[in-house]
């Protein structure tokens, strides 16, 4: 008598856990379409280049002129986490930062650091790994021009 009950209870719990899951994997889900649109050749080409130019990455990146219109398109993906008011990172739990209105240089540095792996966050490192230097300049240009 107790056996079927406990089995039923564990099944119900499993179902509950599964239905709650999409919430925490939302960032990864929303990230996939945009990164898939990146030309694959670009990704493989930029990795060694970035590694070789690592010490000079910041000044070189700052010299690129960002195009905010391109940045607008590239940042559709970012809304999956940075566009939801009150959205929280899961482990550890804290609000995903407000990035609109930061300076282009700060934003560009952050993305370059994530791409190099010197700044760590699994989702952000995955996102940044698909961006070229120009992509980063474009994203930084768009985000830095946003007003509250």
């Amino acid at each position, binding site marked *: 008598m*107790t*056996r079927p009950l*406990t*089995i039923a*209870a*564990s099944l119900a*719990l*499993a179902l*509950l*856990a599964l239905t*709650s*899951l999409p*919430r*925490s994997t939302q960032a990864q889900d929303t990230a996939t379409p945009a990164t898939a649109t990146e030309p694959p050749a670009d990704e493989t080409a930029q990795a060694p280049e970035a590694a070789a130019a690592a010490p000079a990455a910041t000044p070189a990146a700052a010299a690129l002129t960002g195009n905010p219109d391109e940045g*607008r398109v590239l*940042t*559709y993906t*970012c*809304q999956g986490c*940075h*566009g*939801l*008011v*009150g*959205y*929280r*990172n*899961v*482990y*550890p*739990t*804290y*609000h*995903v*930062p*407000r*990035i*609109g*209105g*930061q*300076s*282009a*240089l*700060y934003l560009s*540095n952050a993305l370059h650091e994530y791409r190099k792996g*010197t*700044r*760590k966050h699994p989702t952000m490192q995955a996102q940044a790994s698909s961006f070229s230097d120009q992509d980063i300049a474009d994203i930084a240009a768009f*985000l830095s021009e*946003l*007003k*509250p």
Partner: protein
Amino acid sequence: MSRAMTRSVRLVAPLLLGLALVACGGGGEHASEEGHASSSAGLPTGRVSEGEALANAKGKATGQSCIDCHGADGNNPLDDSYPKLGGQYYDYLEHALQQYRSGAREHALMSQQAKDLSDQQIADLAVYFGSRPGQLRDLHGTH
């Protein structure tokens, strides 16, 4: 009977744990929006006035205060490579300071500034800058 019970407990316990973790990690707005509640990182509750005093105090290692580099209210950074802090989510600021303190995130100045901060001081600074008016925003409605 009791063997069956312990087996079912073994079966259910990880599920319950998983459920609890998922429930804790979910998004959503809570009472801590104003930045006065203690964070899930286990830090004490931040105090705005103590945070303000600390933000203006010179750090021992660098001789600089937070305000010296990030500007009044954290809104006018001395250099473009320094972030604006005013109005940023307090729990993100706590996370950033904890990372600098632990060495998980590195910066020539910030690592020095953060290394001797207590949990209470991190909470105070974060709540202070989070409570300031700011120029930052989320990306909702921007596309």
